């Protein structure tokens, strides 16, 4: 691919900005910022990867994954800001979901502890866990607000926060997992996932691509589900104070 073609492809982003501007969606600045940021980030990462993929010390690999988790936890924690300890919760949940999945796959021999596998796949798992954690916090906050009266009715009847939040937590977890589950349902039919596309475009056999893709789907699903559950179960407590009152402000 020529560099010029890449520039032409950016026209698509500009169309998106034009649509936003025309319809006063007020997200054109966001799109511009995010797309420029993505470009710079990816170019930088390209150079870094050239170097990283030559690393063969396990310790460094783990260190890199930990740094990725930290970044993901920070971004996701911002989503849950009205919740106390949102950054710590996001960080822990993402680490829990990603490393548990990663450990299983590594033990099963699906992936090897080589930089070539660990870094891109680790990045994918952590990225997906981050999405799950962000969605889980976002849904938890929205559901709590939406069900405020039901929650307070239960509290007033003598429910513990856990009892009062049962439905809310379940609903939030369910909603946060919808993208993951829908992706599972439609994989190969509606969209060819990134890795598979890449592998086939680069000239690999579709069947090998499918095998990798399956392993990846399993691990992304597992990681998302674990992250999402850990997030809601840790975070719902933050909606209450010591006197078991719902404290989140009406306007978060």
């Amino acid at each position: 691919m020529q560099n010029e073609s890449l520039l032409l492809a950016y026209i698509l982003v500009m169309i998106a900005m034009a649509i936003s501007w025309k319809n006063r969606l007020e997200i054109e600045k966001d799109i511009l910022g995010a797309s420029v940021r993505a470009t710079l980030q990816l170019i930088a990462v390209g150079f870094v990867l050239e170097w990283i993929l030559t690393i063969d010390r396990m310790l460094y690999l783990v260190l890199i994954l930990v740094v990725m988790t930290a970044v993901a936890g920070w971004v996701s924690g911002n989503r849950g800001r009205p919740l106390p300890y949102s950054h710590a919760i996001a960080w822990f949940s993402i680490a829990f979901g990603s490393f548990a999945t990663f450990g299983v796959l590594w033990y099963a021999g699906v992936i090897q502890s080589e930089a070539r596998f660990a870094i891109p796949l680790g990045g994918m798992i952590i990225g997906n866990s981050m999405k799950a954690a962000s969605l889980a916090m976002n849904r938890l906050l929205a559901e709590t607000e939406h069900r405020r009266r039901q929650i307070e009715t239960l509290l007033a009847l003598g429910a513990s926060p856990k009892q009062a939040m049962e439905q809310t937590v379940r609903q939030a977890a369910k909603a946060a997992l919808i993208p993951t589950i829908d992706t599972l349902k439609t994989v190969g039919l509606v969209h060819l996932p990134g890795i598979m596309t890449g592998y086939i475009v680069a000239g690999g056999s579709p069947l090998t691509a499918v095998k990798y893709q399956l392993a990846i789907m399993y691990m992304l699903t597992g990681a998302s589900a674990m992250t999402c559950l850990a997030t809601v179960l840790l975070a719902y407590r933050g909606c209450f104070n010591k006197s078991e009152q719902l404290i989140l402000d009406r306007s978060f």
Partner: protein
Amino acid sequence: MTSQTQTLLQVSALCLKKDRPILENIHFSLNRGEMLVVLGPSGSGKSTLLRCLNRLESATTGTVCLEGRCTEDISARELRRHIGLVFQEPELLPGTVFENLGTGPKLIGETLEENEGLALLESVGLDPAFKNKRSETLSVGEKQRLALAQVLANQPRVLLLDEPTSALDPLSTETVESAILKVQKDNNIGMILVTHDMDQARRMNSATLVLVDGKIAAYGTLDTILQSGATHLIKRFFSKQDKNS
């Protein structure tokens, strides 16, 4: 009431401050089998007062004692069972009428017996045949009475009712009011009924506390309050009520 009757609920110097003072120096006492009517215009802090008593909100200063015991020493969960609150716009849980009735007991691992449930329905004037009806299909007045029965299943010592008839037509208002008076007579519990409706306050024929801007504007029977000549604050209440209607 004899003078040795132990005070059921004693509220002293209760204040709640958010970005501005919402309740200031609220004090009153309530005996078993008595009703206190809290009358005040919209925004005067009536619901907030009830939320403080049920501890959905913590008062900034002041004390509340239940049967001589300071409520700060009682866990929130236990207190909320003793001082039950029926919300201004009750929210029932999805499920049948009977499931809703059993919510409170179920939260502490108990089950509501069939005959207890039917007795509760009867005590609020609901047809026992409603037992298996889905709660969503009830009318607003029926929901209000079910919410009342739901709280009664916890066998509270004090019952807080937040404008129980504000969403009802005159006929359902009458049904709900008689359910309330019947519950009070049958259970010999203390009740606090919040209303913005002067006529309802009169019908309840009980001690009345007039709340304006979070402060007690008057306290006593409604007749003495009205005879005592409208004070400055009560005058404002009436003018506000005119504006609202």
